[in-house]
């Protein structure tokens, strides 16, 4: 029982990471109708920026804050320069663009920083708490994710910009009629998603160790989590990510270790989707004819 709880809690910590990236994926999907396959690599690149800053002597949280700002601006820039040309093109063209972006980020990171695995510092000491049910590090990761989610919720619910972004995602034509610059809202959305990804990358790097391929598995789990929750639901993204984290951990501990773990976890998720083809919180698209 004790071990089960341990695994659940450490699964929640991993799940917080997946939940964050899943949320970023859902945010972009809602506003641009596109799955951003480059989300993981963007996060990895942001983490390398943080790593560079920390190595240059900056205290951790200062490096964290600067990385978030840089990632936000970078995300906006990517939407404007890389994605905008294909926003009105067939979806497949946009998908290929995100895949290309993935390759570019991965390759450039390997070129600049090499493929050597690096250590990444964690701001949280790694000590067991509560009769070793959970470590302080895992608790820290969950806490950071929680704070980020609360801030996002407040932003979207109570600020005008947040409201404008929700409107632009739901109904861009009507949003324009209200004077909202839909293009700018999309850019801000990508910026926020990039910042969320950066947070996730920085939180996971101490555990997975930093290298250009660090976020590959994370993206897959996040994608699965977002779909499990319902690709149009932010709440679903978080719940889905957490479930995936716990499932992955339990499968890895009790069923099958190593490589097949991914396959089995995905198989379980797909099994759930068979019964709920739009995810747990997703709404079926009602098409009027």
């Amino acid at each position, binding site marked *: 029982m004790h071990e089960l709880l341990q695994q659940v809690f450490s699964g929640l910590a991993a799940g917080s990471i997946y939940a964050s990236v899943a949320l970023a994926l859902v945010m972009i*999907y809602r506003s641009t109708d596109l*799955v951003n396959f480059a989300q993981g690599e963007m996060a990895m690149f942001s983490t390398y920026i943080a790593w560079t800053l920390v190595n240059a002597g900056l205290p951790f949280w200062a490096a964290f804050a600067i990385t978030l700002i840089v990632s936000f601006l970078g995300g906006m820039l990517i939407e404007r320069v*890389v994605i905008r*040309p*294909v926003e009105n*093109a*067939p979806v*497949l*063209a*946009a*998908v*290929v*663009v995100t*895949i*290309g*972006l*993935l*390759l*570019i980020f*991965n*390759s*450039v990171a*390997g*070129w600049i920083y090499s493929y050597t695995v690096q250590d990444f510092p964690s701001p949280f000491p790694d000590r067991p708490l509560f009769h070793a049910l959970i470590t302080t590090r895992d608790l820290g990761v969950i806490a950071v994710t929680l704070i980020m989610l609360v801030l996002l919720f407040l932003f979207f619910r109570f600020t005008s910009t947040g409201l404008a972004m929700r409107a632009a995602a739901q109904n861009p034509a009507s949003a324009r009629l209200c004077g909202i610059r839909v293009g700018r809202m999309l850019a801000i959305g990508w910026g926020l998603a990039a910042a969320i990804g950066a947070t996730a990358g920085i939180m996971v790097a101490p555990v997975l160790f930093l290298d250009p391929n660090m976020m590959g598995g994370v993206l*897959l789990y996040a*994608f*699965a989590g977002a*779909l499990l929750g319902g*690709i149009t639901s932010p709440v679903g993204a978080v719940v889905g990510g957490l479930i995936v984290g716990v499932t992955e951990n339990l499968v890895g501990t009790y069923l099958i270790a190593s*490589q*097949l773990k*991914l*396959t089995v976890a*995905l*198989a379980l*998720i*797909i099994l759930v*989707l*068979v019964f709920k*083809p*739009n*995810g747990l919180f997703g709404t079926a698209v009602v*098409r009027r*004819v």
Partner: protein
Amino acid sequence: MEKGSAAIARTSVGIERPGTTAAGTWRWAATLLAIAIAVVLPFTLRNYHVFELTLVMIYAIAVLGLNILTGYNGQISLGHGGFFAAGAYTAAILMHRYGVPYWATLPPAGLICFVLGVLFGLPALRFEGPYLALVTLAMALATPQLLKYFDTWTGGQQGINLVKPVPPAGLGLSQDRWLYLIALVALLIAIRVAANMLNGRTGRAWVAIRDQPIAAAAMGIDTARYKTLAFGTSTLFTGVAGALSAIAVGYVSPESYSLFLSVSFLVGSAVGGISTIGGAIVGGFFIQFVPNFANDISDAAPWAIYGLAMLLCMYTMPHGVVGSVKPWLARLAQRTAAQRGAAERQDQNDGRRTP
């Protein structure tokens, strides 16, 4: 009933029936010329380049399979590498374990992949868009792992070594040239079969389901049956391509059939033009040659160049090469036809004036 459908057939997808219009005659001539060049080409190139072109054609058949499913029927697949592997390993196991001659492995590989596709397509009916992407993605990821797991059959991590086909005596062909010709024949057959299907009732049903699924169902099209058929047909093509690749390369191993292969097929399809047949050939060229060019340009970050190439292709031709060229050619044909019509009318008028 059949007469009516035949009348409609001419207006929709794929290749026109040749010889019916001026454009059709041009097309027929161009096709024959292309085939002639393709046959002569291997004799003018070195063996290694011939081998590369063989791979181009094999990838083209695989991408053609993907085009059928994703382009014409609108079901996305990130997992076609898995079916490619299924075809490859079917051929490899048949040749290695049971001594089946290489040319006889193609039909079973195709059939097995067809059945696999149908089995996959049935549950896939429940999923759409990104959900279907996930399901196919899971399959692509599972493939190398499953191949390693069932190592008594697949040879596990080591893979299976195969004997490359020997060209028939007396023809004076090198091994590479013989393989090239086999692949060429396979490609031509694949194109012919695809064109026939896509121009016929099946193709029209697929497009109808892709564009207006509700209206299609309301018209009496059995969407479940056609979607499953699309999956099976698509995987049949890709499976045969896989078998050909095993024969041509002479080696199969789990690492060759990673997620990257599935992604490459999708990218090749998009770059060529996903709802076209000719685009598959462009896609084959892209998959085979662009990574090499990228390596030549940048030693340090070749995949960045590859990614950049993908971006540039999508910015300039979002509907793919063939998808962008086709409408342009059609407009050109319209303009010349209009000019010719005007000239004919002019002649008629002139004829009337002279007493």
